[in-house]
């Protein structure tokens, strides 16, 4: 699978979030220069995905920290593009509105 196989919006976010699965996440992560998805990466992605499926949007970074037990700085290190353009994109969410 290659990132070019997916239909994405202008910002590179998956057009149809329902098509997302773990394989898709790996492809997007690789395109972002994240070598291998570690357990910590997966933990963040799962929290984001769960929030999206339950509430229809991206969680606060506060929720990500609480539910994964990760520290804020770790989130930024795991996803250099940040929680939105980095983690939410890998989790197959639409791009959040606003200055991100």
């Amino acid at each position, binding site marked *: 699978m290659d990132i070019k196989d997916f239909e994405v919006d202008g910002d590179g976010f998956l057009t149809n979030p329902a098509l997302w699965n773990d394989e898709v996440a790996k492809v997007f992560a690789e395109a972002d220069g994240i070598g291998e998805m570690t357990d910590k990466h997966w933990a963040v992605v799962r929290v984001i995905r769960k929030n999206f499926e339950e509430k229809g949007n991206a969680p606060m970074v*506060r929720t990500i920290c609480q539910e994964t037990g990760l520290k804020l700085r770790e989130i930024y290190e795991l996803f250099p593009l940040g929680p939105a353009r980095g983690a939410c994109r890998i989790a197959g969410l639409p791009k959040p*509105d*606003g200055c991100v």
Partner: protein
Amino acid sequence: MDNITKEQRKAALDVMRATLAADSKFQTHLNACVKCGLCATSCMYYIAYKDPKFIPGRKVDLVSSIYRRYFTPEGKYFPALFRAKDLDAKMAEEMVDCLYGGCTMCGRCVKHCSIGVDVAYIVKKGREMLAAMGLVPKTLQATVDAALNTGNNMAIPTEEFLDTLKWMEEELQDEMNDEKANIPVDQHDKKIMYTLNPREPKFFPLSISAMAKVFYAAGESWTLSSKYYDVTNYGYFSGNNAHAAQIAQYLYDEVHHLGAKQLILGECGHGSRASRWEGPNLIKHPYDFEMETVLELMAEYIRSGRIKVDKSLNTTLCTLHDPCNLVRNGGLLQEMRFVVKSCVSNFVEMTPHGNDNFCCGGGGGALAMSEYNERRLKIGEIKANQIRATGAKIVITPCHNCVDQLMQLNHTYKLGVTIKTVAEIVADALVITPAAAKPDPANDTATSAAGHSSEPAEKDPTLF
């Protein structure tokens, strides 16, 4: 674009007619361009693409050709002779492409124009016509709608916002070793109502605790609102003035509701502009309270000695990115440098900088418009190269929109820098004195030590 209806055309021409009647500047600037071409190489889009459609004068010409066609007799009867053009589907499409997708309204061309044509103003008027036709790019409109419907452009529920503030407050209390260090919310009759960019509580809350630390050090009387704290105003970029006015009104009303004396605009270029300079025109009356940017407030704190900063606490080589709406279009060139240079010991300017600085590439709503993402990153290469040439490891900028674009440029062009807001740099340089915040001298050493650390919360288990 399929076709535009008669109603759409009428709506756009009504906007033009009303603007011509209300503001003589519009007609003057529509007629002033002498096609000298000096503006071309001041535009990031033209520099990056070398496509004549991005020449600023040509963007003005799109709007002025409609003016000539519908508002001058010569253009009406001899359109070909007078470069007058119909407002048809093709024209509307070109306008959307060039005025939303090919201009950040940074105003760099305005400074280089031999006549002084306010290109960004004309582009804004063109956007207002497109907005009246219902042609605002979808993603930009979504951001405006979120602000209109929920009070903040990321539609953050109040409870989640408060939970994040509580989190940051606990971190601050731990760091200051003082349970009185706080982030006040919805408190009435405070001196200041402070504002945020919603991306701070949502994804990047460290700038909130940084500013709270500055307020703590200054012993300031301040509060946030739980409902209307959003400093941004994407209605200013979409071109729908009714939306922009509504968003500006939210902040105005909230200052009165909370009985604050002063509105302090958080680190946001266009948001500061939309309230401070455009606000009275939007809400149709003057503001009856004081309003300034947090940059000016921090400058006052430093100048008056109300906070003490030590530049030896920030030794990494820093550079500064001038947000267009705060510097070229906002007049804060010196004030911003005063604050930053008081707090860092190793500073280098970009070339060019100040009033001639290049936009980050994400202004004018570009960051919110996925439709033009590729262009945004391509024009951003100019900024990336400017940053790389400085050799700086930290890029400071007092605008969260710029921060996000710079973060993406950092990643895309592998710059290896850290992006910080001005509040974060000031917080890192703070020396918290006993007089400012802590009455108990026994704790002075601990407080001062925390204030001395350039990574103040490092020891904190939750945050780092």
